[in-house]
């Protein structure tokens, strides 16, 4: 459907799109360019606006080097990756197993329990962060990897995504395996999960991006440098190292580049995964 047939040619649409694309990309382009400038040149060409405002005259990787040598971004990167990947693995396993039970096993109170799952994915971390802090504190997990990872592992939305996918799979495959005497664990690991690639991709993206971008919870749940994650490190830049603009831009680029690399090629899965959530009740 071409709703934009208000215009005779497609030229005005291109113009609108180009302007919108510029607005969207401007801060990123500016950050990228600035991250390659030496510190004393960051604001040199800011006003009046010339081509030099948007292009580094002296290209340097100093900011990136300094992030890794002085500010411990190696550790911060490792932490964020470790937390993201662990949460993805745990979340995929627990989420898919629960969804499997909801689709293939019969037990009492199934719909009530599933309703409970639905309720939980509407509760954001921000809202429960304060009582969650008390709980995690009692468990002795404040300032540890467990404190950041464990509360985020089980995700109601992931259970829901897997359930929607299982409902679409041909039931006869599972049935014949059961008649052949396969255990449920075998059906899960040997038959159902190998067919689940698309939903596994979208669920992994969802969990990974969620952890990569989480800010408030790691901010509260950790104190020491040892467990710092990228978003918290970025917010430190605003308050603590306000003068190292080039490093700040470089840090922002580093925080953006991983999700962009994951999301742009896989955007179809990501949107489909979430769009599916509304399709069946």
């Amino acid at each position, binding site marked *: 459907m071409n709703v934009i047939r208000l215009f005779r040619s497609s030229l005005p649409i291109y113009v609108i799109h180009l302007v919108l694309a510029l607005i969207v990309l401007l801060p990123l382009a500016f950050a990228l360019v600035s991250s390659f400038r030496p510190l004393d040149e960051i604001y040199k060409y800011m006003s009046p606006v010339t081509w030099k*405002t948007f292009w580094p005259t002296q290209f340097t990787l100093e900011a990136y080097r300094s992030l890794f040598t002085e500010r411990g971004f190696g550790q911060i990167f490792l932490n964020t990756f470790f937390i993201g990947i662990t949460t993805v693995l745990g979340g995929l396993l627990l989420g898919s197993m629960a969804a499997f039970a909801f689709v293939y096993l019969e037990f009492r109170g199934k719909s009530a329990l599933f309703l409970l799952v639905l309720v939980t994915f509407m509760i954001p971390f921000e809202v429960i962060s304060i009582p969650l802090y008390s709980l995690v504190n009692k468990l002795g997990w404040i300032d540890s990897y467990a404190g950041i990872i464990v509360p985020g592992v*089980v995700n109601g939305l992931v259970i829901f995504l897997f359930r929607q996918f299982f409902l679409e799979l041909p039931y006869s495959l599972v049935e014949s395996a059961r008649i052949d005497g396969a255990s449920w664990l075998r059906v899960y690991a040997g038959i159902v999960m190998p067919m689940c690639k698309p939903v596994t991709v979208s669920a992994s993206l969802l969990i990974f991006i969620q952890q990569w971008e989480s800010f408030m919870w790691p901010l509260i749940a950790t104190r020491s440098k040892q467990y710092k994650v990228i978003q918290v490190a970025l917010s430190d830049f605003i308050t603590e190292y306000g003068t190292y603009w080039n490093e700040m831009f470089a840090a*922002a680029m580093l*925080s953006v580049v991983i999700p962009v690399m994951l999301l742009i090629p896989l955007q179809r899965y990501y949107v489909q995964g979430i769009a599916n959530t509304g399709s069946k009740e």
Partner: protein
Amino acid sequence: MRSEKNIGTILLFLFPALAGLVLFKLYPILSGFVQSLYTTTFITGGRSFVGLQNYISLFTDPVFWNSLKVTLLFNVIINPLQILLAFFLALLLNAKIKRIAWFRSVHFVPVAISVPTACMLWNIMLSPEQGVVNSILAALGLPQQPFLGSSSQALGSIIAIASWKGVGYWALFLLAGLQEVPTSLLEASSLDGASRWKQMIHIVYPMLKRPLTFVVVSVTTANFLLFSPMYILTKGGPENSTDVLMFESFNNAFLYSDLGRSSSIVVTLLLITLTIVAFQFRWLKTSH
């Protein structure tokens, strides 16, 4: 299969996930509510039951009323704005032109940018002395603006930043809905002389209802609970102009260690959000 009685299997598959949800989602919600009925006693370090006292003291406090006002003002502007912009963007991204996939990808980029990063970048872009935006304004012969530094522009600036980050994301869901509208139906109706507006109301809107409901509800909950831009950019200022309830709650918990008050703010905020979401659901179900 119906006679599955193996409790062990069911527990193995279900228990770990359910335990996680109960412990880390449901329990904190309930305990937050309970917390809001208590006050922390500093001498003993314990807490004592005060019933609705936290709520009563909230409702008699001008700081709370200001923060409620800011929260409502913020949401009254940002939610319709983001939904409308997302809709128009979805229409634009649905245009049948070459390389449209590139433009779709461009609007997906902010999805990959976290709120803290978005805040940081725009904070510099909007800086009064050295910001690119003011340089561009100057180049165009327009007056420079204080943006986040002024009590009349700070909230608007945060709305703009949050929309820059969010609109492309929401547009993608509406775009997915638009692509399901059958072209033949539109062509047939325009042959019958239906106006573009009529087509919108009678063909496009009903098909868009499912993604639209998702977008409306998600946008509303996300914005009511939005707090990191205020924490990172303005700390609720200038002159409390960006002091939203979620930020107040955070301050009460982690700055003033008043968990009871903090929880009662969250409970109030959740009740407001739920009421509005319930109305949205009803409105989207009944219209047409």
